[in-house]
Structure formats: C-alpha cells, structure tokens
C-alpha cells in the first residue's frame, strides 16, 4: 500500500480498533528513512477489556517487528519510535503500557494523552499540526 513511499519518515494513523488495513500499511513499509509511527488511538474503541485490547494489538506488534527486521536487511539502522496518542482520558491507561511488548525490544514506545481531542473539529485541527500536540502528560513505555 505504501511501498512506493521510499522517503517516508513519519507515518501517522488513526486507530479505533487495529484492522487488517493497519497491518497491510505496516507490512508495506519500505522506507529506510522511517523515524516515527504515530497511532492516534480513539476512545471510541472498545477499551473496557484490557485483555481484548492486548489481543487486538498483537498483530500490530508483529507487523512492527517484521517491518524493522525487513528494513534492517536493506540497511536501516535507526531506532524506530512508536507513539501511542490516547484520544480522551477515559481509555484505560494500563493497557497502553502493555501494548506492543515484542516491539519494545526493538524500538521505543511512548504514550501521550490528548484529553482535548473530543470533537471532530478539534481532532482535525490537531491532526493537521506537525506531529500532533503534546497537550497531556507523557509516559514512556
């Protein structure tokens, strides 16, 4: 899907629930310039069950690891940073510290909170900002 984006440095994705399209996007990364992937995680997802959440994100974890491994074979020597930006305060925070357990051994995962992103108009303007806002507290995973 994005295999031709060979200069790509930053990939930002909106996530309600991780889907096969997210997996397809990650599996098609070829850019050895890639520095950061940002997931804007919407509170509209079903976050009531942490175990389910971890299970839903497992394929993303796998794809991220495979992406790094694949890029390494083409000369990629960066440490890929993944940022999980929580949209809204009502998402169970503990989930985020446990998401992507395998990738954390290969890259860096940070979690940011953006409580202000409650309305689409705000969301739009924020997502248009460079790299998104840092309006909430930041946790490192």
């Amino acid at each position, binding site marked *: 899907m994005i295999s031709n984006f060979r*200069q790509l440095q*930053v*990939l930002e994705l909106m996530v309600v629930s991780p889907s096969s*399209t997210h997996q397809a996007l990650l599996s098609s990364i070829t850019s050895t310039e890639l520095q950061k992937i940002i997931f*804007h995680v919407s509170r509209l997802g079903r976050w009531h069950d942490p175990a389910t959440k971890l299970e839903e994100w497992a394929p993303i974890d796998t794809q991220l690891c495979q992406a790094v491994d694949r890029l390494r074979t083409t000369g990629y020597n960066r440490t890929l940073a993944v940022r999980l930006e929580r949209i809204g305060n009502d998402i169970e925070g503990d989930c985020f510290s446990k998401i992507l357990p395998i990738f954390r051994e290969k890259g860096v995962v940070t979690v940011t909170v953006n409580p202000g992103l409650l309305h689409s108009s705000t969301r*739009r303007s924020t*997502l*248009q900002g460079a790299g998104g806002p840092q309006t909430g507290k930041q946790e490192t995973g």
Partner: protein
Amino acid sequence: MRNLPQDQVECFSALCNLHSLTLFDIIIERIGGEGFRTCFSAFRDTLTSLTLQTFVVSFSAFVTLVDYFPNIRILQLRSFTPEPDADPVPNLSRPLRGRVNVSGVDTDGHLNFFDQFARLELEYEEVVIDSPSHLIGANHLKHALQLSVTTAKTLRLAGRLPCE
C-alpha cells in the same frame, strides 16, 4: 465571481498581502481564467495556503487554479465534487510542493481525480488523507496513496481506515 460588481472586485484588489485563502461552496469553472486575474492577482505571489471546501471542479480547472498561485505550500481539498472535463488538462508550470490535505472523498469521480492528480508533477513533502465523518473507502485510500509517493516524508491517514 466574474460577474462581481466593481466595488467587490476592488475589495479583492486591496488584499495585496494575503497569505491564506479559503474558497467555500464554489463552482470553480465559473471563475474562469479571466476571473483569476480579476479577483486574485493582488495576492497571487503572497498566497501560500489555499483551501477549497465544498466545491465543484473539473480537473483542468483545478490545475489552472492551483497553478495560478506560484507559492502555495498548503493545499487543502475538502468535500469536493469532481466534474467531467470539457477542456484539456494544462501542464503545471512548476511542481506542487509542501502539504496536500484531502478529505471527504467518497465517490467514483474522486478515483479518477486522484489518478489524474497523481500524474501531475507532485513533490509534496506531506500527504494527509482525512475523513472526518466516516470510513475512508478502501478503493479511495488506494487511489489517494498514489499522491507524491516519491517525495512524501510524512503520511497522515487521519480518518478511520477500512478493513481489507
């Protein structure tokens, strides 16, 4: 717009240092090349951000409009309606650079628009594909992901993505 009263045209001519312009709810064909000069010449060189929102346009008119402003760095296309083209598509006088933001695309006409857009000389560093109110269609996403593939450093998919 080409039928604007003279006093309104003079208002446009006073905007000699304008950087950002939003055209809302407009049929671009009705402006025409002469209309561009009448309304936009005062800020042709200073404009860096152009937003077209809820607009109707053929691809040739779109190219004529964006090419009229030589220094656009931000182009935002929101909820537009592509129209069949009666005119040949003009060549760009220079590559389009900066950021392109496309949102609210969900018709078959948009697919062809993306295909034509991708064939232009694009050197965008940032590509944003948004869909504030509904899922981005899988086919639309595929076609939109043709834009500026060789130069884009940042890709933002700021809407809900479909399942494959």
